[in-house]
């Protein structure tokens, strides 16, 4: 089981309030991603759940048990760190076995579990190496191995992929998702990368300045952002915003249109602009268009859309795809 409930969790470092009071419920077996810009408090929140930081006030419950004051090891959680945090003087085998040794399991049980974890994570051939002799991806797998042998009620991941190169990040992302399907254990994953959040999560928690801006499934957040922050943070390239004369026809203070929800034409449309930089990805092209009164607008078009720098184009937002926000930045529905 791995049901985690936060009630009015508050954290201050001295006079600085990092987390002003958060209520959150994480269901057993869920893959939850905490996402937000750096300094938003997502790592602190994870460390509060882990027990590596003490809460200033509020309670944390795991499966109905109040663990607010419990030591990290007593919470039944396992954590994978950004720096991997492997024990450099121990072999891969001993790294993975370490939590089991601390739990005083007998040798044969430890051996069996380590072998099984190594098999799942493709580490069988590396068991006798030291962490220093492994690549970044392999190290990360050892860190995950060390977490899974404990059979925790939940896994905590603190930006585990940010030290890897882009290609490896993609592979590891899939591996972690696959692992979640195999183990069906609650996972809490912290990242600043909204692509990781979108692709891996069952539920995303968007954090900003210690506050939860919105909680929902990836598509929920994409289609129905509660406010300007979530609208701007989720989705890549980010949503275009316009105010004033552009938003007035929609009865809103601000409107937002995603780059993929703009129709482009060289003849006619609602807004007109001049093509700036074009980013060709092959399948798609991102056009950055200067529109008088809005500024730079990003539009996503087919890979072979034939315009070049300096051309005049017309943009038309898809009906029903325009997000409306009031003067406080909250969504109007």
């Amino acid at each position, binding site marked *: 089981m791995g049901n985690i409930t936060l009630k009015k969790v508050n954290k201050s470092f001295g006079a600085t309030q990092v987390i002003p009071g958060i209520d959150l419920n994480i269901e057993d077996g869920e893959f939850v991603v905490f996402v937000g810009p750096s300094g938003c408090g997502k790592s602190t929140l994870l460390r509060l759940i882990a027990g*590596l930081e003490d809460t200033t006030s509020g309670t944390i419950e795991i499966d109905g048990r109040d663990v607010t004051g419990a030591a990290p090891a007593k919470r039944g959680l396992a954590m994978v760190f950004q720096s991997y945090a492997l024990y450099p003087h121990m072999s891969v085998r001993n790294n993975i076995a370490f939590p089991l040794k601390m739990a005083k399991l007998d040798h044969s049980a430890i051996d069996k579990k380590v072998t099984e974890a190594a098999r799942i994570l493709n580490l069988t051939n590396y068991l006798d190496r030291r962490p220093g002799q492994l690549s970044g991806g392999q190290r990360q797998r050892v860190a995950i191995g060390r977490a899974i042998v404990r059979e925790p009620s939940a896994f905590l991941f603190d930006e585990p992929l940010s030290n890897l190169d882009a290609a490896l990040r993609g592979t590891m992302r899939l591996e972690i998702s696959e692992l979640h399907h195999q183990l069906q254990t609650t996972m809490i994953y912290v990242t600043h990368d909204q692509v990781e959040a979108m692709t891996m999560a069952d539920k995303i928690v968007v954090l900003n300045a210690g506050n939860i801006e919105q909680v929902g499934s990836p598509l929920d957040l994409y289609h129905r952002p509660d406010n300007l922050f979530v609208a701007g943070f989720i989705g890549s390239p980010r949503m275009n915003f316009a105010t004033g004369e552009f938003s007035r026809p929609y009865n809103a203070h601000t409107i937002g249109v995603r780059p993929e929800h703009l129709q482009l034409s060289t003849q006619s449309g609602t807004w007109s602009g001049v093509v700036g930089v074009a980013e060709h990805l092959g399948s798609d092209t991102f056009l950055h268009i200067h529109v008088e009164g809005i500024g730079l607008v990003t539009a996503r078009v087919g890979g072979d859309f034939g315009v070049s720098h300096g051309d005049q184009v017309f943009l038309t937002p898809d009906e029903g795809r325009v997000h409306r926000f009031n003067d406080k930045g909250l969504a109007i529905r």
Partner: protein
Amino acid sequence: MARAVSTRRTAAFTIAAWIVALIIFFPILYTIITSFKSETEAIQGFSLIPSGTVESYVEVQTQKDYFKPFMNSVILSVGSTLLALLISVPAAWSMAFSPTKKTKDVLMWMLSTKMMPAVAVLVPIYLIFRDFGLLDSRLGLTFMLTMINLPIVIWMLYTYFREIPGEILEAARMDGASLWGEIIYVLTPMAVPGIASTMLLNIILAWNEAFWTIRLTTTNAAPLTAFIASFSSPQGLFWAKLSAASTLAIAPILIMGWFSQKQLVRGLTFGAVK
């Protein structure tokens, strides 16, 4: 072309390094050479070729007991090093892993005590030693050497401990290690190389310390530094004997340094080169 230039550069640097090394080592070399000369040879002027006589060594042995100051040197340097580690490991530990706003100031203050010339406190220290009956005692001198080297030991250990990432300790905590489990299985194995090279360096520093060891001892607690000094005595200077005594005094530490040079170099450049 570029290759030729770089080879020439490498050669130039190699020669320069050898010259510097020779200049640094020359006093030791010349001491050793002189120790194999007779007294008449020794005062005759500069010569790199000794007659090879061992009469000075024999003379030194018969005139004075080498073993006692040698044992004193061992006891003082090892004793003061262990005492220094006993104090500095917890001190450096707490400063590295739970620093406060004042940690940097405390470290600076410790280092600043090394900036004061020792002679400035000679009289008060001498009087304290006299009043507490610590003059010419191993205990007093061990304590003195500990105090002298403590700032350096703490600084070295502090830089070592700082290199141990905090996340590893947190990982151990998550993995269910108790405080002692954390110390025994994770911290100590990672800190041992650092503690070892600090220990080596401190033994060398304590072995060679001459200001206090000569001034605060006469016979009982006198280490090898005082043994050397005793050969520049009222009868006049006997260069060959003095050199023989010096060679005997530095030989143990030179041999130890030779065998542990890898550790020492690592210890001294730690943090600077990664």
